[in-house]
């Protein structure tokens, strides 16, 4: 069997692919026409990250939106959360962010938002895909065609105001934190240094903050990709380091020694900070660590779990009126008071606020969290294998409680768990395990890997 590369994927998460022969302007334009046909005539917010294909796709999508009678508000290079929040704040009918998020630079994608500035839910996505395939788009006549306007500075100002209202800004400023940032030359390149330096009074060490340059590292902020940040932390003695992905929804956090906090720990610290101010329900995805449940228990709050993916988490958050949520698996923090989206700026502000409040460093804050041992791995996807793997896994551990919301999650009586699922965005199957003991985690990982590999 030849290996299929996912050079183009049109599906429930929108349209994503390698720019060139695969993600063409004609395809992007047609998808925008389907989107505008779905939203109806009115304003649509359009922004992008710093990928080299951004301007080309911006023109193609603008063309498509104008042709179906939508007025296009171009907001230029902005983080995805800023675009989402601006859609909701301005009463637009929807929004499109041109970003392939953490995917490599040759990829780009259209992220689609409804009038609440949220990812399309399951039903909206289905209808949009049907419209796209039917290819019968609104046929705006000459004087019904849309117009273009541009709004480059207001969205970020509104976003930051919302975040800063939720923390004690003066307390943070007084500490004059020595912080570091790696913005991967992405959408946060200009805004994040402004946010940390001017809004939060940090002494800032900044790298990869030139939006005109290509990504200097792998786009996803991981321990492997953040060597430069680690080196910067050690050299400058910064107290805390932040790293974003190209569209600024994901956040990674580094300790003074340059090592990264686990994403689950970052989420747990933010959950703790939020619940200490406003107790309420928490929603995380199935692959997120049980550390969240323990932290929520400190505040007497409940945790609900959703399938993996921002849209799924947001759907559950809405259903449970959650005050905080996110995905430990990928560094996403969702704080509805600012907006129903993954927002790295909320994360940065709450962590600095917690440090200012407690007088503790990020290392000490993390050390107070209960210890879990997590491990994960991924294997190339082969069609038709998922069902067999799920059945084999369940048969191997008949004593565990099974949850089939998203692949299979087995939870054992001691709280340990194993989760196997297929990726939403890449042709991969992912296996994650967690327990309180390193040995048990390794045992579960090996058992799961054996089943995947067999």
């Amino acid at each position, binding site marked *: 069997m030849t290996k299929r590369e996912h050079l183009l994927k049109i599906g429930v998460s929108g349209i994503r692919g390698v*720019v060139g022969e695969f993600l*063409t302007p004609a395809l992007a334009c047609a998808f925008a026409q389907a989107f505008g046909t779905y939203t109806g005539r009115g304003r649509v917010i359009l922004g992008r990250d710093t990928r080299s294909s951004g301007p*080309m796709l911006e023109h193609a999508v603008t*063309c498509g939106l*104008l042709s179906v009678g939508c007025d296009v508000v171009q907001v230029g290079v902005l983080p995805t959360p800023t675009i989402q929040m601006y859609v909701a704040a301005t009463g637009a009918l929807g929004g499109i962010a041109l970003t392939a998020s953490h995917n490599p*630079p040759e990829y780009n994608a259209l992220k689609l938002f409804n009038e609440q500035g949220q990812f399309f839910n399951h039903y909206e996505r289905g209808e949009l895909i049907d419209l796209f395939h039917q290819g019968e788009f609104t*046929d705006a006549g000459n*004087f019904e065609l849309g117009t273009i306007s541009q709004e480059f500075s207001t969205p970020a100002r509104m976003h930051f105001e919302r975040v800063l209202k939720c923390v004690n800004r003066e307390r943070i400023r007084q500490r004059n934190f020595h912080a570091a940032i790696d913005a991967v030359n992405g959408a946060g390149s200009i805004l994040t240094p402004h946010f940390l330096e001017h809004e939060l009074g940090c002494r800032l060490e900044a790298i990869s903050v030139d939006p005109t340059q*290509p990504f200097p590292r792998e786009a996803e902020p991981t321990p492997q990709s953040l060597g430069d940040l680690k080196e910067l932390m050690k050299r400058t003695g910064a107290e805390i380091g932040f790293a974003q992905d190209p569209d600024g929804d994901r956040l990674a956090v580094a300790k003074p020694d340059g090592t990264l906090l686990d994403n689950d720990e970052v989420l747990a610290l933010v959950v703790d900070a939020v619940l200490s101010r406003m107790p309420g329900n928490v929603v995380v995805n199935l692959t997120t660590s049980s550390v969240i449940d323990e932290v929520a228990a400190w505040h007497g709050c409940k945790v609900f779990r959703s399938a993996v993916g921002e849209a799924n988490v947001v759907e559950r958050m809405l259903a449970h009126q959650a005050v905080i949520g996110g995905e430990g698996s990928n560094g996403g923090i969702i704080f509805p008071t600012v907006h129903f989206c993954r927002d790295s700026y909320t994360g940065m502000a709450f962590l600095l606020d917690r440090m200012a409040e407690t007088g503790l460093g990020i290392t000490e804050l993390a050390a107070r969290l209960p210890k879990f041992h997590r491990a994960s791995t991924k294997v190339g996807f082969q069609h038709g294998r998922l069902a067999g793997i799920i059945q084999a896994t369940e048969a191997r551990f008949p004593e565990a409680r099974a949850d089939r919301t998203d692949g299979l999650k087995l939870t054992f009586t001691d709280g340990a768990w194993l989760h196997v699922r297929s990726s939403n965005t890449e042709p991969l199957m992912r296996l994650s395990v967690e327990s309180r003991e390193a040995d048990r985690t390794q045992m579960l990982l090996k058992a799961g890997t054996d089943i995947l590999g067999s």
Partner: protein
Amino acid sequence: MASLRISQVGVRGVVGRGGITARHVLDFGAAFATFLATEGPVVIARDPRASGLMLREGLVAALLAAGRDVIDLGIASTPVIQHTIRQRQAAGGVSISASHNAAEWNALKFFGPVGTYLTTAEADELLDIYHLRRFYAAPWNKLGQVELDSSAIDRYLDELSEVFHFDQLRQFRVVVDCSNGTSSRILRRLNERFGFSLILINAAMDGRFAHEPSTSARVVGLQLAPLVQPLAADAGFLFDADSDRVAFATELGEPVSEELILPMLSDYLLPRSEGKIVLTNLSTTSLNEEVASWHGGKVVRVPVGRNAAIDALNAHRPEQIALAGEGTGAVMMPQFRFVYDGIATMLTLLEKSAARQQPLSQLVAAMPRYSMLKGEVPLKRHRIPQLLELLATALGEGKINRQDGLRVDLPSGRWGDNAWFHVRVSQTEPFVRVIAEARGAAPQDLFDEVMETTRAHA
């Protein structure tokens, strides 16, 4: 009437409503980028039509995706694009304008390096690539970039100022009907920078047209001509939306047939030119031959359409040509690099008036009178070969030219002096066009006979 036409001329149609879609624009942009043989950016501009933005966005996306840098002039005329292609050593250009069509129409016109219209062979090639749909896509990290060039109109005016004696011309008091097109922006700059006192009407560029932007005596008569005498102007000029054509009224407020522009310019330019050829198409007035004969010139006639004119230009040495033009008020002159240019044409007519020290009405009166009748018949039965044969047999005792439909120049006698007719299928609209002309009075009988035969077969 059909609302979309894809042909050698490019793509032209009503926007939406079964006409031009975003997809047409993206595919034609991609085809053009694939077609271009030389390295270099592509110059684009648009007229003020409401649909111009949508077309621009699609065109830019397609060009960038093919790795072409784009020089966007914003709202600018077709001649400005053509000059910019040469000045910036671009690989080609695209004009987003349906020139003389109504506001809800739009079109893409394509230009090669040096800024000329495509030849027939090139236009065929572009159309083949469009239909083949195998477009070149640049790798993700080799996409083009957009540059906004806001000084192109000024550079164009600088070039005009080198060709014309502005100090002689700025004395004229001229009313200009901009037809809500690109001439508004250019002529406003001409006033600002060079002290002209052109009075501009219909100068708003909001995508709405006060009237059809067509350069004909009929449209000149609507709003422009009645203003000339009350404003004590020396002339009234009217441009189409992309300013490559012009029509005018005299200082007496009389609209002048657009057919007269080319012979009036030949009369002025032939004595000054080394070249003695006047290049025009088969549908223009025979006055061209008469005027050329005054100055030892020779008229070369080719099929209607820009591509055919470019083919003919390429078949001669540039110094052989005195000027080239259509009966629509589109003229190109060698001193202005063979670009159909309404504004240059206006300036040349004013220059002639200054040189002869005669007002426009006298220059018009000096032209022998020819009368032309024009008609069009919707294309339904498509028995065009039979139609042409029948006409050639019934009326063909004269000189027959079959390069583009059928033109017959009839011997003097039954139909009057210098009588001729031309029947052809339009390239841009689904019509058979019929033209009959004679020196002196209109050849009504000839016209009626040809129209009747045409109706029976078209």
